[in-house]
């Protein structure tokens, strides 16, 4: 509670919380499309590819204003994205290899430039490498305003092209046949990811940016089968994780914000994976168990029916028939009695009215149709 009031009043914390929330929102919304288009790792690649752009921007302008550096980073990321798309279009190289090449090649160039600057060849470089791990605590009010602007542009474009994006996501061939510029729309969507990366670099840094684009979408995907809801939910989950991570990191000293945001959203992913209705793994496991138990019980009833037909439904006979131990056969008969399918008879047990009807129905269902 105290944290919440601080979040509103304290300048630094307010910026961190707002910045993280905006990042989560933008990453979530765009990530939903990236996830469905199986381009989840584009964000990771673009984030790594931004590093040489940041360094070049510094080398060329000598300025350390975040907006200038991020613009450079964004341009480099964009170049990497276009390059990956070109490689995919013109060669047989699989997508993951193309992404890996762009990621490591650009990052290598970035490290080279960064070291070149650090070795005192140009100006004072301190602070350039904060983009690697992000430095949410260093967010200024003006940065947050910038994020809000980028976020507004992103959301407006997604809203404007929602129908088109939906079509190229689910049925690109149909989109082409309708005469939509599929390739250009794909490039636009990828370029929007560049904007998200520019926001993310300052907050969570190069390495963790991947999670901001993948995790909210992956979590949202578990809760719904409709794109519209998924996009909103993804943005919402991303924003909440941003706020949660920022507050958590403010709760104690020495807690880095970026990793906490990522861990929060990862927790949401795992909760969704297990407990989302319909798709949740926990519910699925439960259903499988129930099914398995019911099938076992039905098999037992059929065996009991067979034995009862010959008037020998006793634990001994059941054990012999099923090849199991006597105590187990007793337990099994007890299961059937609890169901109300068998009752003790003159010799051993016999099927009740209910049990008989069930057994006959089962046999009918299992009879091979000719």
């Amino acid at each position: 509670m105290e944290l919440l009031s601080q979040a509103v009043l304290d300048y630094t914390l307010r910026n961190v919380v707002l910045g993280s929330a905006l990042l989560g929102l933008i990453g979530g919304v765009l990530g939903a499309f990236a996830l469905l288009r199986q381009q989840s790792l584009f964000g990771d690649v673009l984030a790594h590819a931004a590093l040489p752009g940041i360094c070049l921007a510094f080398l060329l302008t000598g300025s350390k204003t975040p907006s200038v550096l991020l613009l450079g980073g964004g341009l480099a990321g964009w170049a990497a994205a276009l390059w990956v798309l070109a490689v995919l279009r013109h060669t047989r190289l699989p997508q993951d290899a193309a992404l890996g090449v762009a990621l490591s090649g650009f990052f290598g160039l970035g490290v080279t430039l960064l070291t070149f600057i650090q070795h005192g060849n140009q100006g004072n470089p301190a602070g350039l490498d904060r983009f690697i791990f992000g430095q949410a605590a260093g967010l200024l009010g003006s940065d947050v305003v910038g994020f809000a602007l980028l976020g507004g542009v992103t959301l407006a474009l997604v809203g404007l092209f929602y129908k088109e994006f939906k079509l190229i996501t689910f049925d690109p061939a149909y989109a082409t046949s309708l005469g939509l510029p599929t390739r250009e729309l794909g490039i636009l969507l990828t370029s929007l990811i560049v904007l998200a990366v520019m926001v993310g670099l300052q907050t969570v840094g190069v390495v963790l940016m991947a999670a901001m684009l993948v995790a909210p979408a992956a979590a949202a995907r578990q809760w719904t089968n409709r794109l519209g809801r998924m996009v909103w939910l993804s943005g919402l989950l991303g924003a909440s994780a941003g706020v949660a991570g920022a507050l958590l990191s403010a709760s104690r000293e020495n807690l880095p914000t970026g990793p906490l945001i990522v861990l929060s959203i990862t927790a949401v992913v795992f909760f969704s994976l297990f407990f989302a209705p319909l798709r949740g793994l926990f519910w699925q496991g439960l259903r499988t168990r129930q099914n398995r138990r019911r099938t076992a019980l039905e098999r037992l009833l059929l065996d009991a029916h067979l034995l009862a037909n010959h008037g020998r439904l006793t634990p001994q006979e059941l054990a012999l028939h099923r090849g199991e131990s006597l105590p187990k056969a007793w337990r099994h008969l007890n299961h059937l009695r609890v169901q109300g399918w068998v009752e003790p008879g003159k010799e051993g047990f016999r099927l009740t009215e209910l049990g008989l009807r069930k057994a006959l129905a089962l046999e009918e269902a299992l009879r091979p149709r000719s």
Partner: protein
Amino acid sequence: MSPDLVILLTAVLVSTASALLGSFLVLRRMALVSDAISHAVLPGIVLAYWLSGGKATLPALLGAAGSGLLTVSLVEWLTRTGRVKNDAAIGIVFPALFSLGVLWVSLSFRNIHLDLDAVLYGEIAYAPFNTLELWGLTLPESWLVMGGLALLNLLFVLLFYKELKLSTFDPSLAAALGFSPGLLHYALMALVSLTTVGAFQSVGAILIVAFLIIPPATAYLLTRRLPALLGLAVGIGILSSLLGYLLAVWLDTSIAGMMAAVAGGCFALAFLFSPTQGYLTTRLRHRQQRLEVTARLLVAHLAHHKTPVPESEIQEEFGWDARFLQRVKQKALEEGWLETRAEGLVPRNKDLGIR
């Protein structure tokens, strides 16, 4: 021993060890798994540091290899649930593990020097300073670690070449023939983890991806045969290491970073100029093919005329501009399909050019 030699041989060993495995990663469409492993080794290294209380090599190797395998298993488990796709699973798992590592470092090792930068970028320039005494010789540690790994990877590829080839190109046949592709897969992943960890002291966790992926991807653009791919990948890896080293020394900058950048440059060259599928080579080929087809069309058209056809008439009929006509005419003349006379163009032999 000269420091240059130590660094260069280390780089050559790193390139060899990683290009051999990377080739199979690229072919199996698992290139980005290496990205995931390389980031996720951080918590393993921190754990090893925490347990052993120092920067000992062996615990770090084991811890990081363990977290590498954990990453792979988690990614595969997530993929197998069918709830997320493989690439999304990678994007969820490795940032989470990396975050755990960073968090752990900032909570427990605030005052101890466990340099995150060193984990990420490595510093191959320090290779000459870490030495070991062995059989009375003073050898750089990096030679032993990377030499051992390069040898191990080479043996793995040589011994299981047939199995690797089969399970890479036809996993179901491999399974049907009883080659247990699963086991091979985990062996490959274990080696990738070990190589990543072994190399991270030299080139860092992120740049190892460049050594693993870029040379094989470059080779992939140049050949369609597996042995050639492996050989080219190793060659390109070594070449870009050597070139990168020279450039880095010249410009006084990060050696590993420059090696990765040079490898990226090699890939860009292959993308543009690969004989089979390079961007520029295909453009050029298409242009020439178009010219040839048009020239044949022109000759076929002329063959239907009894008299020579003036160029202006051809231009009008085909809607060509003068420059294009000249190019087509040139091509047909070169091929010997055409004669020019004062009145116009005549096919040299009515059968030629139309097959």
